[in-house]
């Protein structure tokens, strides 16, 4: 167990009747990192979060949030953790500012101190102008941003965001993720983002954990996960003329183990990236015209497909080489 794990779970399990929502989860999240909790819907991400918040009781196993047990000291945990649920709701008949004021009061900020905090947060999330409009007039993106302000109001050590980008257009999602990145990098908060939208969170997370059917099946940096998946070898795609000779020439390069034509591209597998300069040199030596050469890396999507659906995938869909 790492020393700086701010959140630790040991054999954490939650069952609803026969359904196992979270299955013997062992997870450590380090202080100050942005952690992505990835997985398809119903994988147990939200249940895990609810247990971290002390809103749901684990069936078995134990967990610590900054040293506190969320079951026994729910109040302490709730003081230091800001949680934004998916489909966050606000009181529609109140203005954005009034909604935040209620949260501020519940966190024992009052008077001028609360008002100043609310104002600065509203400015930060870009809602200062619509702060005194009723929340029912807000767009989805504005609600999410108000949610971020609401979470930050108590100045939490840990921020948990459940599907923060759900239902946002790409621009809105981008802005929100930038805000989250700032939160982690500049303010040093520990951030946990749960999402099934991998591409969006990929760029933000330091580490990700992949959840399938209640189990954490992989955890680590995205690059590490990709490396583990490809076991060190990546695929090179080449487009060169004349096509007829291409396969033979490439095969003659030392280290190439497999090749396959895909459309007008040749996919090469073997020693990995170091192959590329050698292939280029060989092609040049035979005075062939190279139009395109790219090293295909595993994207998070490949990782996702690999782990989630148990599909046999290789980079970008070569099914069998």
């Amino acid at each position, binding site marked *: 167990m790492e020393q700086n794990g701010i959140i630790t779970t040991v054999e954490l399990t939650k069952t609803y009747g026969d359904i196992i929502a979270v299955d013997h989860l062992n997870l450590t999240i380090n202080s100050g990192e942005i952690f992505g909790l990835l997985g398809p819907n119903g994988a147990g991400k939200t249940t895990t979060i609810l247990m971290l*918040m002390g809103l749901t009781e684990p069936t078995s196993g134990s967990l610590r949030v*900054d040293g506190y047990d969320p079951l026994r000291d729910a109040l302490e945990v709730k003081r230091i953790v800001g949680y934004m649920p998916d489909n966050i709701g606000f009181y529609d008949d109140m203005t954005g500012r009034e909604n935040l004021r209620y949260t501020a009061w519940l966190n024992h900020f009052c008077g001028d101190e609360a008002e100043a905090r609310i104002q600065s947060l509203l400015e930060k999330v870009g809602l200062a102008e619509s702060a005194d409009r009723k929340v029912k007039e807000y767009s989805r993106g504005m609600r999410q941003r108000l949610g971020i302000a609401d979470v930050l109001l108590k100045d939490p050590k840990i921020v948990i965001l459940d599907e923060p980008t759900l239902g946002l257009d790409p621009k809105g999602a981008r802005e929100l993720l930038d805000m989250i990145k700032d939160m982690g990098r500049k303010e040093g908060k520990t951030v946990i983002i749960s999402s099934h939208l991998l591409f969006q969170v990929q760029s933000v997370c330091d580490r990700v954990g992949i959840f399938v059917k209640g189990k954490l099946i992989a955890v680590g940096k995205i690059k590490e996960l990709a490396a583990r998946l490809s076991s060190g070898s990546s695929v090179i795609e080449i487009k060169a003329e004349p096509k007829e000779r291409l396969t033979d020439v490439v095969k003659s390069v030392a280290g190439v183990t497999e090749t396959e034509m895909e459309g007008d591209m040749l996919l090469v597998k073997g020693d990995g990236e170091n192959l590329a300069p050698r292939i280029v040199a060989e092609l040049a030596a035979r005075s062939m015209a190279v139009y395109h050469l790219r090293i295909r890396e595993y994207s998070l999507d490949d990782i996702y497909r690999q782990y989630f659906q148990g599909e046999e995938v290789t980079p970008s869909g070569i099914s069998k080489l």
Partner: protein
Amino acid sequence: MESASSNVIIDKPKKVEEKAKRRSSGNLGTVFKKELADQLSSSRFFILFFLIMITGAVSFYTAVQNISGASAGDSEFVLVKIFTIGGNSLPPFTWFLSLLGPLVGLAMGFDAINGEQNRGTMSRLLSQPLYRDDVINGKFLARLAVLAFMTFALGGFVAGMGILMTGVGPTAEEILRLLIYLVLSIVYMAFWLALSMLFSLVFRQTATSALGGIALWLLFSIFVPLLAGMVADAVFPVNDQTPAITQLHNIELKQGLARLSPSTLYSEASVTILSPDVRTLGPVLAEQASGAIMGYLPLGQSLLLIWPHLTGLVAATLIIFAVAYTLFLRQEVRA
């Protein structure tokens, strides 16, 4: 629980100061304030308030019209009579309040919990540093405060107008009787409030909990008294030749069954406390009545007569609220 299943020992949780642990979160007041503001600014409140005020004004008007005839040669207890005297076509104030009171309670509580759950505000609220007790207690107390405010405003309005129109000043006893009646009404409405809050916990949809509340209201105020009569007639059939003892049993059974309904309890209690000439609530035999001196019952005796009703209503309210409270504390927030 944790040590039983996990063989990995993780560090002991931080010790929260014992003193801090017992300390309340201090957020009951915050929830109360917010809920109170919600209630008072909602259009629902204004509709209910004006509905009640209008019925109050109408029944008061008919009472003033009819009081001169009813109390000819008897100027005692004019103030409380305003509440119990109706006109030819219009029932008295007490009848209106016994009918509309439950509706007010139901309307205030039916979406107290599931409304927040459906809007997604509940999980946000519960992730703030406050105990769940604060949420349900704050919600209940704020609504109770609004009910009390409404009832006293209404009672004060009718009584004040009554004094003004009849020109008869109230006695201390009348004021006391009126206050007891108003408190009784608040308790009765609180019963329906607790019930509708319970329904708002049990049912996920606000429409379902509202309908459930209305169904129970109809059951208690209409069907239970009807059914009580039917059951009593089936167990102790009564006709012209029936001996008096069977008739007595019939009436007693009927009354006993009807008193299972809080509406019956409230109606009986409010009539007794407002009409000092009501001497008993059970059946009276002719020999018991013979030689009795007609007169008014003192306040203490009236109170004694309705004491079981009052405790019954308070107990029912508390039990229902306790059930709702326990359910709410145990309710899991689900994914």
